[in-house]
């Protein structure tokens, strides 16, 4: 019912009491390196498609860990799998592998 001209505003708060990050944990099992991300942003800075599209491996990982899978995956849709981010990651995370795992999981779903 909305006869007042307004309604409850949806909350953007991350509520870790209820968030479900099972997808993140699945990816972590396949690519344990993602736990060592330090959010430096090298992956995004080096992304060959990132200037044309909203791509952020760094933020996608972060959102997955908070259980925000839809928002996370949207940040990887434009990925062309070139692997440049893997080359620059200072923690040596196999970023390309993690992206493959995420895409594979979602395609199955």
């Amino acid at each position, binding site marked *: *019912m909305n006869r*007042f001209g*307004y309604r*409850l505003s949806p*909350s953007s708060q991350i509520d870790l009491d209820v968030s479900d990050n099972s997808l993140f944990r699945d990816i972590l099992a396949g690519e344990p390196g993602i736990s060592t991300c330090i959010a430096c942003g090298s992956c995004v800075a080096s992304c060959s498609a990132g200037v044309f599209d909203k791509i952020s491996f760094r933020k996608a990982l972060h959102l997955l860990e908070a259980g925000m899978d839809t928002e996370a995956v949207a940040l990887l849709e434009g990925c062309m799998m070139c692997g440049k981010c893997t080359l620059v990651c200072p923690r040596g995370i196999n970023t390309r592998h993690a992206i493959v795992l995420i895409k594979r999981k979602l395609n199955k779903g």
Partner: protein
Amino acid sequence: MIVEGKKKIWSEYQKDIPDDHYFYVRSCIRQNFFPASEKVFLDIVRNRLGLDFFETPHHTTCGGIAYHSDSIPQETLMTIVARQFALMTEAGYENYVCSCITSFGIYNEIIDTWHHYPELEAKIRGLLWEASKREFKIPKSVVHASDVIYKLRNTILENGKYRLVNKTTGEPLRVVEHIGCHYSKMFPSKGVGGAEYPYVLTGMAEAWGGTVIDYPERRHCCGFGFRQYLVQANRGYSISNTHKKFESMAPFKPDMIITNCPGCPYFLDRWQYVIEELEGKTYGADSKGIPVFTYEEVAGLVLGYDPWDLGLQMHQTAVEPLLDKIGIIYNKEDKYKI
């Protein structure tokens, strides 16, 4: 919860509240929202407790609503306030007491601003003189009317007829206290108990037999927030903030809410109805809503005033379940007497 820890903080935030001889100023909106609160306040302090509270029909709004909704500049606000101070000075009073939390914040903010920028005070003195040929002294003390009731809480209990206790079970009523944001968040030292754990309403509720609930969103805004409500496009924020508070307090099963601000009781009371319409959810252990009161109304109930003389019929959320819990005798038909 470690009560001793709170007591320690409370002991660090005590303020001087004068004993007598006050210059009293009303709120712009409370007489519409909760029409008997100020009347009852004056009746209690003057007629029941024999104190000197001077009031003048010449006083106006403090300008706070206009200021916080960006309609008037600060100099205009200060000149309005300077005129109020002039009325106090002319009447021969030094202790300023206001009914409104917004005003309380405004007065403290202005006095503090003048302290740091004396040239601004001089300018305002000039503007007031030009506009009205008035002069003023800065009040010796500025307190909120809830500070006065807090100070008198034990005297009120001694003269009281009822206590905030469930008559059937003998258990203390579970009270949510909600402090207006501008009471102590701007100047923690100006509020009894400070900003994080204010004691002003807790002190009343405990003295009168209730027990106070500390719920996670206790410190959150009631939802009024000036622009949040006044600008219709933002009104969803207003009700969402109120909703957030109710969701947070609901598990504690509060019997009642006590407030000390003009906007808070209004929004906490009225939005319960709107939330019910929008979400189909009614708060309160018995799904009858959680009654919301001003501290004057609660003082009035404790002192045995007739609920309908306190204007409780103007509340959206029905108060009868709470009156019955306390065991207050009232006449149902009188609710809508003229």
